[in-house]
């Protein structure tokens, strides 16, 4: 996963852009692996990973090594190896433009 690359959910509309990635990290959405090309037929969503994604939010793993930006929202939720990713707290800066 290299920064800037995009991943699509196999179960819903969710799309993410990699902000920070690990070489061997594999991201899941709605219980299924995320892919570069969305499959023609969607896989069923795992109810344990169905809290939804929110556009514009950043999702991180527990040690903050992986960071994904949600660029399209969907019904699935994000995880790595079955561990749910969390929304990163935004530290707002004053608008400067």
């Amino acid at each position: 996963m290299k920064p800037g690359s995009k991943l699509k959910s196999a179960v819903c509309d969710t799309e993410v852009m990699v902000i920070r990635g690990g070489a061997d990290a594999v991201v899941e959405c709605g219980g299924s692996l995320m892919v570069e090309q969305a499959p023609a037929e969607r896989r069923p969503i795992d109810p344990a990973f169905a809290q939804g994604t929110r556009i514009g939010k950043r999702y991180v793993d527990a040690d903050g090594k992986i960071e994904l930006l949600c660029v399209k929202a969907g019904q699935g939720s994000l995880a790595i190896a079955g561990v749910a990713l969390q929304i990163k707290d935004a530290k707002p800066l004053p608008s400067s433009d």
Partner: protein
Amino acid sequence: MNISLVLQMAVEAEPERIGLVCEGRRWSYLALMQAARAAAADISSSGCSHVALLDESSEAAAIALFGAALAGVAYVPLNYRLADPDLASLLSRIAPAYIVGDAQRIERLSPDLGHRTRERSAFLVHATTSESLASADEPAEGIAVQLFTSGTTAAPKAALLRHANLLSYILGTVEFGAAAEQEAVLVSVPPYHIAGIAALLSSIYAMRRIVLLPAFDPDDWLRLAATEHATHAFLVPTMLGRVITRVDAGASADLSAMRAVAYGGGRMPTELIERALELFPKTDFTNAYGLTETSSTIALLGPEEHRAARSSSDPQARARLGSVGRPLPTVQVEIRDEEGRPLPAGERGEIYVRGDQVSGEYRERSALDAAGWFPTRDAGWLDAQGYLFLAGRTDDVIVRGGENISPGEIEDVLLAHPAIAEAAAVAVPSAEWGEAVGVAVVIRPGSAAPEEEQLRALVRSRLRSSRVPERIAFLDALPYNEMGKLLRREIRALFKG
């Protein structure tokens, strides 16, 4: 990465929300995206190597910016105020270009270089009625924007900003969709300035409605702020000064909605920001410092810091009102000496910056060092708390007999004289010292010009004797470019001539 993502996400979130207003025309995010896609198709089929804009600010600037990004072609907004020979030279450097704006002028100045021209009205009609570029493919990466630097010291350089630089800046500083629906930002900087590009990208990513003023005028600015209930604005100090002059003269000013004003792009005189804080006590002021080559802002002095500095009795804390604040969390800043060695807090040197948003790249070469640091050519220092102070351009330093003299210190002393409205110190040739100090001053209307000896005595009383000006010129006005940047080369030329 491609900057079209910014608009794509806004469309995804709220397609029908109004994202841009210009002279009463209101554009939803979806309408802007559809127009950008149609423009992209036209750009792609033109086969041109650049997309240029030669026009005042309008929705065409946003559509051309995103259309170029979708087509994978660099966007080059040009300064329409340039003199013909200067503009002709830039047009030859971007040929063949797809150019939106003054078609007649382009034809006259650059007839045989294969440019495709579109008058703004024709460009907008085409963009709102034509087939759009198929959206299946990921748009290209690479260079998003090419900006010619203003060339206050030399010929304009072609600064390149990659999609990755601009997007890093936006993602690192703006929270997506953070603006409430009633928020509106009044944008009055020209489209060919980095602040004009950053305003489009930041505001669309925050989903803050953009209200465009085609060309800055203080009365138009006040009128538009009131009628559109603008909540935010960005101004260069010269513009803020002109707005305040009009307000002080009794112009009608309903700025009750104006919550936040950011300023940058030039030196802010302390009296001016103090007057602004006094006039608009409820407005948040933010000072933003950045360069074209750094994709806009790299340091910020926020609203709380303005208030803290103003109300403090500690002179060091008060002085921070004259700083540009602290570096963004996403960039690193160092002060270095002439040999490139880092300097400790409090020592003046050249400002270096590093970060994903920093391009430091020109068409001809990259200015980044091996470790990715960009030498800004701006002089400055950091205080013990990490606040960054600017001290002019390193190229403007006067080297008198091996001693480095910053023009700012002399100018500050001269400006303390009640009869002096403006002052500029530059290097003048000296047989004895190599360079010596020359100053150009403008006398306040209604004041009598002081004797030259009186001004020399004033500088001598405050600074070392090496700072005392050898030559003094009394001018009616100092030469500035339209962004309020002092054109020191013209003052130097005056002393040579």
